Structure formats: structure tokens, C-alpha cells
């Protein structure tokens, strides 16, 4: 027995040794790891969302701010979903019990983290829920700042909207310190300047017990409010621009020619970014992206269209600068000219007769410009178009800007694998054919033509330094002649842009009517086949303060559909201080 007792004591010692080894492994080797898990067990980090920065217009009128919103959430661990409780909650929130159950089931994360059941409930609903609080354990009313787009649809394409982070954003290191549940900019300025606007979310570190109840607050890291930003937009001008587009599809861009600032940028139809602020519903989202009128498209920068006769400004300038004509050169318009066995017609079938460059601009004579086109050739036309910013991005701080097309021989060979035909030059010089541009590009082009050839980078953030892209050498004589002719478009009795005439500011401009269908097919008179209407403008005559481009999709005649909008927008700009001409001090100072 002695010996067996000894064996027994050895076994006991061996077991103790085994325990000590195990303890060593758990506590010393993996101690740090287990310590972390135990901390994670007891500490919860609850994100405190940061207030997003406020977005102001150029005169410090708030366009976007934040307002408190009440969200109803449930901590699943504490909310046992018995049918009676579910139907009580469903009744209070005006949801079906199945919907609540589904949301609870879809909720990700630990059973201790609250799952949103309904966002943005009314104050009355909150009061009703608070009254029944005892019957609804695990229910949480969260007060979260919600984005408020004060003017709804106003400038929606510029301002943009918010949404949950996309999978790509979740992986992007630039979004590392953004809580997963936070909203970030998805479109427009909200997206471009998201890193400025979003601020930094704070955290509340709380100690919880195993049932998820907060036992005490361990620490608070206060959120840092996002930076407020001031845009170059002028709300009055913007409002007028959108008013002008009401009920139509199109775009209006107003630039400050001496700075490249965007005073207004409207695209129609538009959308209400408030829909996104509380997390857009699937139904609303489908409706927006399936709408054939494409309300999410920012036509000012994402729509490319043939510029029509507004392009004649480039044609005229190129012809004068290249010396293929002078301002006194006259041609005879008989309503059409022949080239390569084809007939190229003027919009005026009877013809303009003997006509000068001035009248060719004011009355938009196509034949005169065919003659110019023949003399310039496509390469020089393309060169001037590109100099004035067509075919290149304007540099605006918005995603998805398109470049448009400035056709040339090389372009055609490369893209269509065909040689250039002379007739195509004639189409191009009147802004038809392959040529296409965005409304923003056209406004920028006008800016450079009337400010002495300075092409600025276009921008929306007020604080952004003015960037001169390049200066185009223009003979002052050609510039003043062109300006005079453009004034004539509006002021002369035969001018195509008479409808842009304003009683109290002199406006210069150029109409454009871009054909959507080839002339042979014009018989079909449906809205889809109507021409696009253009009007580009500037004002006042001396030291212009605004350059405008108006585009109305299928609007018909530029002079009828687009010119009045341009006039209203320009008047809105000068009306702001009631004195006719507004001395916008900042614009003046910056232009020096």
C-alpha cells in the first residue's frame, strides 16, 4: 500500500504541474490577448455622431444645416419579441409587426447594439412611446442630428446628398475614422468636401454588464463638428435659374467671368436631398433611378449636347483672329450653299441676302458661317474650341464631369476610323455634327471671350483660390466687335435673342438651336424630336459680371425657350440690391 500511495502522490503532483503549465499558457503567454477580450466584454464604444458642417451660399445664407431627429431603436438582448409587445410597438410606430420583426432580424452586430426600427419619428410619437416605456424594455429613443436641406430641391445637384458608406468607402482608408453607421456624402459638394464637412465622430466609452446594461460611463470623447463651408452660389440667382427651368429638362449655369466662381448651377428635373437625409427607402430610390427624365443627372456638367449656333461665337472669333475675314467682310446668303454635291441650308430658307459678320451673328446666318468654315478648315476651328475650354473638364469640384467632343480629322480617324469630309466642317462651325459640350463648358467659353481671353478654373467653394488656366491672346478689336455683335443679338430688332432684352441691364448673348434629328426626318413632330434650345449670355456690356448658359432639352428655338430664362437669371443677379447694377464688392476686388 505504501508504494501505491506514493504513486498516488506522484499523480497528484503531475496534475498540479499540468495545471500550472495551463495557467502559464492562459495568463502569461496569452494574457494580453485575454485581457483585451475581457475589456471588449465590458467596454462598449458608442459613436456620438458629429454635426456636419453647415453649407452657406456666397452671402452667408444657410442652404444646408442639421436638425435633431428622433430615432427609435431596440436592443435585441433586452427586447424579447413576444407578440403582444410587438403589436403594441407596431401600433405606436404605425408599422406592421412583421416589419419590426424583419428589421430586428436584419440588424447586424451584437445583440447588445441597438437596431434602428424607425427613423425620424415625430415628437408626438416619442411622447406616446415614452408613456409606455415600462412595457417596452430594450427600447431606445436616440436623438441624432439629421441633415436638413432648407430649400429642398434647390441646387440639389450641386449640394448632393448623403448615404450610408458604400462597400468601397468602407475599405477606403480616408473613411477610417467614420463610424459604420454614419452618413457620408455620396454626391455633389456633400461628397467632394465630405472630409471637411463630416467632422470627427466622438465616442462614449461605457461599461456594460453581461445583459448590455450601461453600468457607468468610463469616458467621453466629444465629437468635433464638421467645418462650415461657403459656396460661390447665390441663392437668388440659383432660385431664378431653377424657376426658369420649371417643368422642363435642362440646365442653367451662371459664372463670374473674372473669377471662375459658379454663381448658379441648376439642372432640371431635380430631386429632394431630404429624401436621402433619413436614409432613402428602396422604393424612392428605384423611382429616382428609373425615372426616364433622369433627375439624378446633373445636366450642367454630365449632359453633353451639340451647342448649335452658340458655337458661332468661336467660329467668328477664330475667323477674325486667323484673318480669313475681317469684320467688314460680306457674303451673300441664298438660303443654302453647295458642297461636295450636298446642299447646306441656312435656317432662313429665303436667305439673308448680302450680309455682314455683325448681322450674321445677330441673325445667326448659317451660310455666312459655312463660308467661314470653308476658309478656316476643321483643324483651326477645333483649335479655337479647345482653347476656350471645350473638350476639357472645367475643373469644377463635382464628380462625373464630362468632356464633350471637339471633332477634328485626327479625332474622327481614331474614333470612327474614317477620314474627315469637308461637309462635316460646315456642320461643326454651326455647332452641329459631332461637336458636343456641357452647359458649363459653354458658360466658361463665354466668360473667356468677354473677359479678354482669361480662362479660369471653375469652382464652387468660396475659399478656393482663383486659378487661371490660361490666357488666350485675342485682338482687342475682335473682342469689342464680338461683344457689340452679341449685344446686337439681344438689342437689334432682327436679333435672334430679342427675348433676352432687359429693361434695366444690357445683355449680350447668342442663341442656339441644336438639331436632335437630321433634317430629312423632321416630319415626325414629337417632343422627343424637338430641337434643344440654347442661349449663352453675359451682362453688363462693360466689365461683365455674369456669364450665363441656358440649355433647354427639346425646348425648341433658343431665342424663344432659352433666352428669356437667361434674362430672368441675369436680372435676378442685378436685382439683389435693387439698384440696377450691383457692385458686388468681392467680385470686383477679386477681379483686380
Amino acid at each position: 500500500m505504501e508504494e501505491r500511495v506514493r504513486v498516488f502522490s506522484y499523480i497528484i503532483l503531475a496534475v498540479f504541474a499540468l495545471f500550472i503549465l495551463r495557467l502559464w499558457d492562459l495568463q502569461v503567454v496569452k494574457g494580453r490577448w485575454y485581457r483585451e477580450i475581457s475589456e471588449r466584454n465590458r467596454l462598449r464604444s458608442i459613436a456620438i455622431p458629429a454635426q456636419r458642417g453647415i453649407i452657406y451660399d456666397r452671402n452667408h445664407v444657410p442652404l444646408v444645416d442639421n436638425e435633431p431627429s428622433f430615432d427609435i431603436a431596440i436592443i435585441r438582448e433586452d427586447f424579447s419579441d413576444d407578440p403582444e409587445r410587438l403589436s403594441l410597438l407596431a401600433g405606436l410606430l404605425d408599422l406592421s409587426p412583421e416589419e419590426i420583426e424583419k428589421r430586428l432580424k436584419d440588424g447586424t452586430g451584437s445583440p447588445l447594439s441597438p437596431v434602428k426600427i424607425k427613423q425620424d419619428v415625430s415628437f408626438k410619437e416619442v411622447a406616446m412611446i415614452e408613456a409606455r416605456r415600462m412595457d417596452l424594455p430594450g427600447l431606445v429613443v436616440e436623438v441624432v442630428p439629421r441633415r436638413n436641406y432648407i430649400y429642398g430641391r434647390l441646387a440639389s445637384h450641386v449640394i448632393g446628398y448623403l448615404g450610408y458608406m458604400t462597400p468601397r468607402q468602407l475599405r477606403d482608408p480616408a473613411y477610417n475614422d467614420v463610424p459604420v453607421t454614419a452618413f457620408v456624402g455620396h454626391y455633389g459638394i456633400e461628397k467632394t468636401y465630405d472630409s471637411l464637412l463630416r467632422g470627427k465622430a466622438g465616442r462614449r466609452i461605457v461599461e456594460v454588464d453581461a445583459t448590455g446594461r450601461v453600468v457607468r460611463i468610463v469616458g467621453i470623447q466629444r465629437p468635433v463638428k464638421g467645418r462650415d463651408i461657403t459656396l460661390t452660389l447665390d441663392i437668388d440667382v440659383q432660385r431664378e435659374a431653377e424657376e426658369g427651368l420649371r417643368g422642363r429638362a435642362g440646365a442653367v449655369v451662371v459664372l463670374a467671368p473674372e473669377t471662375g466662381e459658379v454663381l448658379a448651377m441648376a439642372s432640371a428635373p431635380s430631386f429632394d436631398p431630404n429624401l436621402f437625409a433619413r436614409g432613402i427607402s428602396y422604393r424612392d430610390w428605384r423611382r429616382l433611378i428609373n425615372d426616364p427624365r433622369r433627375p439624378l443627372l446633373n445636366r450642367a456638367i454630365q449632359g453633353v449636347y451639340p451647342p448649335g449656333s452658340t458655337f458661332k461665337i468661336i467660329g467668328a472669333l477664330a475667323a477674325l483672329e486667323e484673318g480669313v475675314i475681317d469684320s467688314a467682310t460680306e457674303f451673300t446668303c441664298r438660303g443654302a450653299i453647295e458642297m461636295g454635291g450636298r446642299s447646306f441650308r441656312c435656317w432662313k430658307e429665303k436667305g439673308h441676302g448680302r450680309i455682314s459678320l455683325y448681322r450674321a451673328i445677330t441673325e445667326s446666318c448659317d451660310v455666312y458661317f459655312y463660308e467661314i468654315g470653308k476658309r478656316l478648315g476643321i483643324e483651326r476651328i477645333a483649335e479655337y474650341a479647345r482653347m476656350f475650354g471645350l473638350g476639357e473638364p472645367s475643373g469644377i469640384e463635382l464628380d462625373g464631369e464630362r468632356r464633350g467632343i471637339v471633332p477634328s480629322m485626327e479625332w474622327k480617324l481614331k474614333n470612327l476610323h474614317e477620314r474627315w469630309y469637308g461637309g462635316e466642317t460646315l456642320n461643326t462651325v454651326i455647332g452641329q455634327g459631332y461637336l458636343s459640350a456641357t452647359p458649363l463648358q459653354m458658360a466658361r467659353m463665354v466668360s473667356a471671350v468677354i473677359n479678354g481671353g482669361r480662362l479660369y478654373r471653375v469652382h464652387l467653394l468660396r475659399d478656393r483660390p482663383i486659378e487661371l488656366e490660361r490666357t488666350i491672346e485675342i485682338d482687342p478689336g475682335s473682342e469689342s466687335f464680338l461683344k457689340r455683335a452679341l449685344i446686337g443679338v439681344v438689342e437689334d430688332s432682327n436679333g435672334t435673342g430679342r427675348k433676352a432684352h432687359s429693361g434695366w441691364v444690357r445683355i449680350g448673348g447668342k442663341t442656339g438651336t441644336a438639331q436632335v434629328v437630321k433634317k430629312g426626318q423632321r416630319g415626325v413632330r414629337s417632343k422627343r424630336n424637338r430641337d434643344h434650345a440654347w442661349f449663352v449670355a453675359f451682362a453688363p456690356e462693360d466689365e461683365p459680371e455674369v456669364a450665363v448658359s441656358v440649355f433647354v432639352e427639346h425646348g425648341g428655338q433658343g431665342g424663344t425657350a432659352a433666352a428669356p430664362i437667361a434674362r430672368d437669371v441675369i436680372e435676378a443677379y442685378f436685382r439683389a440690391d435693387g439698384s440696377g447694377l450691383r457692385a458686388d464688392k468681392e467680385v470686383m476686388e477679386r477681379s483686380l
Partner: protein
Amino acid sequence: MIDRRLLKNFDWGIPFVALFISLIGVATIYSATRPVFDIPQQDFYLRQLYWIAIGMLAFIFTISIDYRHLVRFAYILFLIGVILLFAVLFIGKRGMGAQRWIVLGPFSFQPSEFFKILFIVALSRYLSRMDRSRPLGLREIIRMLTLFVLIPFILIIRQPDLGTAIILLLLFSCMVMMAGVRRRIAITGIIIGLVSLPFIGSIMWENLKDYQRQRLIAFVEPEADPHGVGYHINQSKITIGSGGFTGKGYLKGTQGPLRFLPERHTDFIFAIFAEEWGFSGCIVLFLLYLFLITKGIDTVKKARDASGAFIVLGVTIAFSFYFIINVGMTLGMVPVVGIPMPLFSYGGTAMLSNFIALGIIENVRMRRSFMYY
């Protein structure tokens, strides 16, 4: 009743170390159940203190009766124990899915806790009366199994109290082995045991309660479902591991009071101790337990007669098993079988029976010198 010679042989180490361990236990229970936020402190630690006092009294009472009287009445006491086990099935109180308690006025106790001691004494008497010049044969073993094990085992399983039933079986095997078994029987016994383990396992499996099955699943694969059945083991490992070498410090542990660790003051109390005192504290605690076990083994050698040696052997084996299975389960090395840590876990009956067991060791130890006259 206690004469001077007995006092001279009295080993003060046993009661003092036992008291020390149980007081550390109280402190740990206090920490594990200390209040957080608005949950009031439950008085587990106070009640444990009372039980320790009662345990000490029981210890004194136990040493004052010569163990040989106990041996004389061994079979009658054993019979009373079996009757109590029967009784608990009919008049017992239910608690946590099992029927283990008998309520006597303000007291409630678990007969199976005391039954172990009666079982040890009875088996010891039987073994000591046998001719031990030759190893035990198969026939004797089977006879002992039917006499001492079969009925109590079935009764305890029915409660169900899996832990105690297994302890009973292990206790029997160890005591018989220690008494000396023919090598052939010992080896075949072990082999048969190992081979039949899966069969017995599957039979047991069929008869297990749901929570018992889940514990076994959890033991085999604790990470499979961390919020479900593996939760106990995972949280226990986290609790122990997070203590590190020096521990988080007394009353600085978080896993217990915040209730991440279930059974924090009973079966998993060791994890709480390990969290607050770390590796170094555990070594000290282990040494204290080792001291008691060593005293037991030493007493086996010094006992004046065979029955005393067997009783102390049985008690020491039982005490060691409880310690090993509890700590092993807390460390995730043994399946979770609801066995408390002796002297440490919260629980009155266990505290009482542990002090009685230690009293028996002291009892036999005190009376050793009579051997050498």
C-alpha cells in the same frame, strides 16, 4: 474526551490552512458578487462566513469522536445515507433543473454531499477487514460494487447529480486499486474502461439531461457557439487569462460583477480568483491545497490501523478529485460537470462536508502515536 496525548499530536496546519483557504474564498465571493450600478450586493459572502463557522464547529466535533467508533457504526450510517438519497427523490426540493435538496426547517442540505463520507467509511471498513495479503479478485470487486456503489449511483444519477455520481465511481475505483488489485484485473479493468467508454458514453448520452449534453458539446468545441453552450468555458478562459501574471488586483476584476462569467461565485470561483490575483496568486493558492493533500497522504502512511488509513485515503482522494475536476473544468481541460471547488466555492453543505472530511484526517492523524506502543 480529548486527552493531552491527542493534543500533542494535533496538527494545527490542517485547520489553519483550511480556514485560510476558505477565507480567501469568502473574499473572492465578495468580489465576484460585489454590486455594480444599482444591483444590491447579495449576501453570499456573509452566508459563506456563517457556514465556515459551522464548518469549524463540525471540524471540532469530528475530531472529538474517535474514528473507530465511526468505523463500528459504518454500515448503519451507510444505510441511513442511502435512505436519505431515496428520500431526496421524493421530498427533495428542485433547484436549477435538479432535485438535490432536502429542506429541514430553515436549513436545506444535499444528502449526496454527506453520503460520500459515509460511503468512504463503509468501504474502508469493508476493505480493512479483508485479507490483504493477496490482491483482490474479480469476485470481491463485483461484490463490493453491488453492495456499495450500484444503488447510490443510480439514486444520485436520478437527481440528477452527474458530478457526484462520477466522483463516487472514481472514488470506488481508486480506493479498490489502492487496496491492491490483481495486476491482470487492474490492467483489463482499465482497458475495458477505456474501450467501453464510447458505449457507456452513448448510453449515458441517451440518459443525459439537455443541459448536461450541451456541456459536453461545449467542452469538445467551445468556440463553435460562443454565445451558446460554449459560453461558460470561453468566458472562464477569458477571465483567467485576463489576470496575467500579477492579476488585475483585488476588487478590480470585471468578469464576475458584470456577470460575464456565469456561476461566478460557485463553480467558476477559481476563475475570479485567477483574474484578480494572476498567475502568482494561483501558485500560492495551489500550494495551500497541495499542503492539505500532502497532509492527507502523510496521514495515510501514519494511520494506526488499516481502517483509519483507508478512510483518510478515501477522503484525500475525494478532496483531490474535487479540486482537480473543478480547477480542470475552469481551465477548460475537463468538461463542465458542476463540481464545486472544495473550501472555496459558495455552498454550505459542501463547506460542511469538507470540514468534516478534514476533521476525519485530523482525527486519524491525532490518534497515530497509539500505533507505536
